[in-house]
């Protein structure tokens, strides 16, 4: 369960590594509908997060990096789960980005596609031409204004016109990009294998600021209220840091004995939720990183979804179980001053 459980009204949506997409009743866990992708060819898994529009749920599938594998981008009817359209790819493990009537997604093989959301037909396509021998997870495209941005597996950051697909600029960072892209206003944020965080202008691709961190940034950088939250790893320990959005200094650091396995911290009720492969998940106070509570489930925690501050938490583990979890009620929460 790498796909984040995503609440949409009364259902929680999630795609499994075993190849079924589910719409669960968020209160009971009963599957209202599901769709098994094995009927559509040699594909096995969902890895990205669903994009939800007024009428559709869009999500990609893949067979990891298998040379004989395929994938699709699916558009499901939001209410019934019926397939509105599907577009075959070489495997799409990324999230789907939306700009007006166009959706964008990337593949394990360094391809970025732009599709018409109405019927899924191809509008334009770009390929970095780079191989992916280590089966790195590609970064999801993101949108700023009328442009789409893509962090290639070749270490190059690309900017395209969202409509025409024309390349506006590219910036070879000379190192592997290890996080997904995050956006604050007109700036892009990413981490690299050189244990650095970068802030890059969406306008021209120039580095606005960069910053060394204690280990390699991984997953997705969470943007908070003028702060960033980032998970790091060095092969042994897991780090969780918060920085200002100008990347001038670290606000707080938490170091754990083992790496975090959830893709990114989830903000819930002014706390940040992260999990590891022992099934332990912990809530840290967002203001200063102080641990608040922890609990344990069975499985390696890969994804955490929320239903607003007052609702339950939904947790996916690698072994395939989805949990709906009611967090402990904390009263008289200290300010830590």
């Amino acid at each position, binding site marked *: *369960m790498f796909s984040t459980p995503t609440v949409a009204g009364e259902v929680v949506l999630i795609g*499994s*590594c*075993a*190849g*079924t997409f*589910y719409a*669960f009743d968020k*209160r*009971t*866990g009963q*599957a209202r509908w599901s769709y098994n992708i094995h009927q559509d060819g040699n594909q096995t898994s969902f890895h990205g997060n669903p994009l939800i529009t007024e009428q559709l749920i869009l999500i990609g599938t893949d067979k990891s990096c298998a040379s004989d594998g395929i994938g699709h981008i699916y558009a499901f009817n939001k209410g019934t789960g019926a397939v509105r359209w599907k577009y075959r790819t070489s495997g799409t493990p990324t999230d789907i980005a939306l700009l007006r009537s166009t959706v964008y997604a990337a593949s394990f093989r360094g391809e970025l596609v732009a599709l018409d959301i109405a019927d899924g037909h191809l509008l334009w396509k770009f390929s970095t031409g780079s191989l992916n021998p280590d089966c790195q997870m590609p970064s999801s495209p993101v949108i700023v204004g009328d442009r789409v941005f893509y962090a290639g597996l070749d270490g190059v950051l690309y900017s395209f016109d969202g409509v025409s697909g024309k390349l506006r600029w590219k910036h070879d960072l000379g190192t592997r990009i290890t996080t997904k892209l995050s956006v604050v206003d007109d700036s892009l944020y990413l981490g690299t294998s050189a244990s650095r965080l970068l802030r890059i202008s969406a306008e021209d691709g120039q580095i606005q600021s960069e910053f060394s961190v204690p280990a390699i940034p991984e997953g997705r950088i969470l943007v908070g209220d003028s702060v960033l939250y980032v998970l790091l790893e060095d092969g042994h320990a897991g*780090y969780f840091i918060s920085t200002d959005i100008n990347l001038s200094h*670290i*606000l*707080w*650091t*938490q*170091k*754990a*004995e083992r790496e975090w396995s959830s893709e990114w911290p989830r903000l819930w009720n002014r706390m940040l939720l992260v999990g590891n492969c022992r099934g*332990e998940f*912990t809530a840290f*106070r967002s203001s*200063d*990183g*102080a*641990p*608040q*509570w*922890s*609990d*344990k*489930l*069975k499985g390696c925690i890969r994804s955490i979804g929320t239903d607003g501050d007052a609702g*339950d938490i939904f947790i996916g583990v690698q*072994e*395939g*179980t*989805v*949990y*709906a*979890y*009611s*967090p*402990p*009620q*904390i*009263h*008289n*929460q*200290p300010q*830590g*001053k």
Partner: protein
Amino acid sequence: MLSTRLVILPFLMAAAISVAQTAHGASFMEVDSSLGKVIWQYDTNG
């Protein structure tokens, strides 16, 4: 229903988390009787 194990600080600090740098330090809290619990779970077999 899966049995869960709730750990409240400061036990957590000793067991699993070491604080490398926290500006304000760890804090204690009051937790009421409604501890965290699994509401439902669904096994997708992978």
